[in-house]
């Protein structure tokens, strides 16, 4: 990092390694071990929370790929989630409930929608793009709503548990392992992307489009690619969401969900994979935290009525607090803490010697 001393590498491969010290390797091993043995100790409710967080992290990582890396703001990611979920629902309605069909189909639908937004995005910037994606979200929801009422299932569509041959993915613990593994895999893939050619090209476009062109990056191609990959991944998350909840209804994918996803990447810290995961955990767990807080305070009856606006308001307050006080998000706090430890007992990094 930017500190003077530290570890010296003798090969480029060594310098490229993600986990480069014994301490980090040990910490990672411990974390994986803890996640594996967790079901022996935790309640099903806790496991479900972890699983939900992992699923949200997949969506947040996908959005981070688009917004954090490539710099293309999307307010319509709930639309892609809805598209994935409803792709599954449509297949189920056509008696094709196999996840081996539904997941690739969701990815394809997502990729297609990605192209549909990606191509106008070539000429759009900032505000226009954000609102364009928001518009797409509304249109996708309209289409989903039409489908829902068309099939006569006004409340929603039930989804059977995913079946892989003879084995059925069912129960809290199974879902916990499946979703945590998927979340971990997507995290590793996103981290890798950031240190390879395509990820660098996206970051270049984010930082300075004109300079990106000057080094020979086909900006148009890479922008569309970012939309396609991000929305395909998000749609797969949507399909998983449908299977896990076993139910799909258009009400679940409203404007607020889109805001939740953008909040995840912002509260977590834009452009950082770790941030996306932290943000996903934060936003997913927040409502339960408030529930627990209300329960602990033993407020008199009738309080449930106010719970929804309370959650809403707390969410807004936290968003505002992060926007104002910590634009770097949770990852910024983490970096500061790390700097504090590394620099201790000094407070500031000294000026570098003459170069």
């Amino acid at each position, binding site marked *: 990092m930017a500190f003077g001393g530290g570890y010296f590498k003798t090969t480029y491969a060594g310098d490229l390694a993600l986990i480069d010290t014994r301490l980090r390797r040990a910490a990672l091993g411990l974390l994986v071990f803890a996640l594996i043995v967790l079901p022996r100790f935790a309640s099903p409710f806790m496991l479900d929370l972890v699983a939900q967080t992992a699923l949200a992290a997949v969506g947040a990582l996908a959005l981070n790929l688009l917004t954090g890396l490539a710099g293309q703001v999307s307010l319509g990611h709930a639309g892609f989630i809805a598209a994935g979920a409803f792709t599954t629902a449509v297949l189920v309605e056509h008696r094709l409930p196999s996840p081996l069909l539904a997941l690739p189909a969701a990815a394809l639908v997502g990729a297609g929608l990605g192209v549909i937004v990606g191509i106008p995005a070539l000429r759009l910037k900032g505000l226009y793009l*954000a*609102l*364009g994606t928001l518009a797409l979200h509304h249109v996708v929801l309209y289409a989903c709503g039409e489908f829902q009422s068309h099939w006569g299932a006004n409340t929603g569509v039930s989804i059977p548990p995913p079946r892989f041959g003879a084995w059925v993915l069912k129960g809290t613990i199974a879902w916990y392992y499946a979703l945590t593994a998927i979340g971990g895999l997507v995290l590793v893939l996103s981290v890798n992307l950031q240190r390879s050619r395509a990820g660098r090209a996206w970051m270049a476009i984010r930082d300075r489009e004109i300079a990106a062109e000057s080094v020979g990056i086909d900006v148009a191609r890479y922008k569309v690619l970012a939309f396609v990959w991000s929305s395909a991944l998000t749609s797969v998350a949507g399909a998983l969401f449908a299977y896990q909840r076993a139910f799909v209804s258009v009400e679940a994918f409203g404007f607020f969900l889109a805001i939740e996803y953008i909040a995840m990447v912002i509260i977590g810290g834009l452009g950082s994979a770790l941030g996306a995961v932290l943000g996903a955990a934060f936003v997913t767990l927040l409502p339960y935290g408030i529930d627990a807080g209300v329960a602990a305070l033993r407020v008199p009856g009738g309080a449930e009525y106010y719970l929804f606006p309370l959650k809403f308001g707390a969410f807004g307050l936290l968003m505002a607090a992060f926007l104002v006080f910590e634009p770097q998000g949770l990852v910024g706090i983490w970096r500061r803490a790390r700097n504090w430890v590394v620099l201790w007992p000094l407070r500031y990094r000294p000026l570098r010697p003459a170069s």
Partner: protein
Amino acid sequence: MARPALMLLAALLGVTATVTPALAQYRIGMSAAIAAVLVTITLGILLRAAIVLVYTDRIRHPLPLLGLANPPRRLPGGAVVSTFDLLTVAVAATLFVGLFAFLRLSPLGIQMRAAGEKPLLAAQRGINFQLLFALSWALAGFAGALAGILYANNVRLDPSLGVLGLKAFAVALVGGLDSLGGVIPGALIVAAVEVLSVRYGDPLLADVSPFLCLLAMLPVRPWGLFGTREELERV
């Protein structure tokens, strides 16, 4: 729970909602436009929570409560519109002319445009840009609130009225974000499409029609019908 506590909480939400924009807009590391969108949404979330806390989310019709009437008027040419419809048009026109004059001619308006372009330079020239940002948010809030009042009296009052704001985004973009003059044709087009899709389509379609307008316009003229085309970046 005690009602005063809720009121206090609502007040806290409201204050945060009004202070956030001015503070957040220049701190955030992203482009100003994105920061503005996020801040607007946050603000919406906060205000909505505050409103539900205080007033609950029942739908109301304020007009009879205020003891006002909204009689229909016959226009020359035979069309019939409500009084508040006429009032809305009049208010919109006044607001439009007033804003135009303010931003083009008054020193404060010029300072506002200056601070919008380069907050730091404005500060270095003795302009308190945070005050100006707060003022511009207040102006926007005032105009939005006027729209809300007129709509609530004319149609109904409920907390999900905020969706109107999303339509306003569509209008602003179709007209061209940097063109005050584009607002009127933009609004006319969006409204016409909405009315026509109620008439010939279904009401659900009408709800998304502003967004369809937006999506149709963006690939063709991304800078809006009357906006200025973004110049090539200087290098």
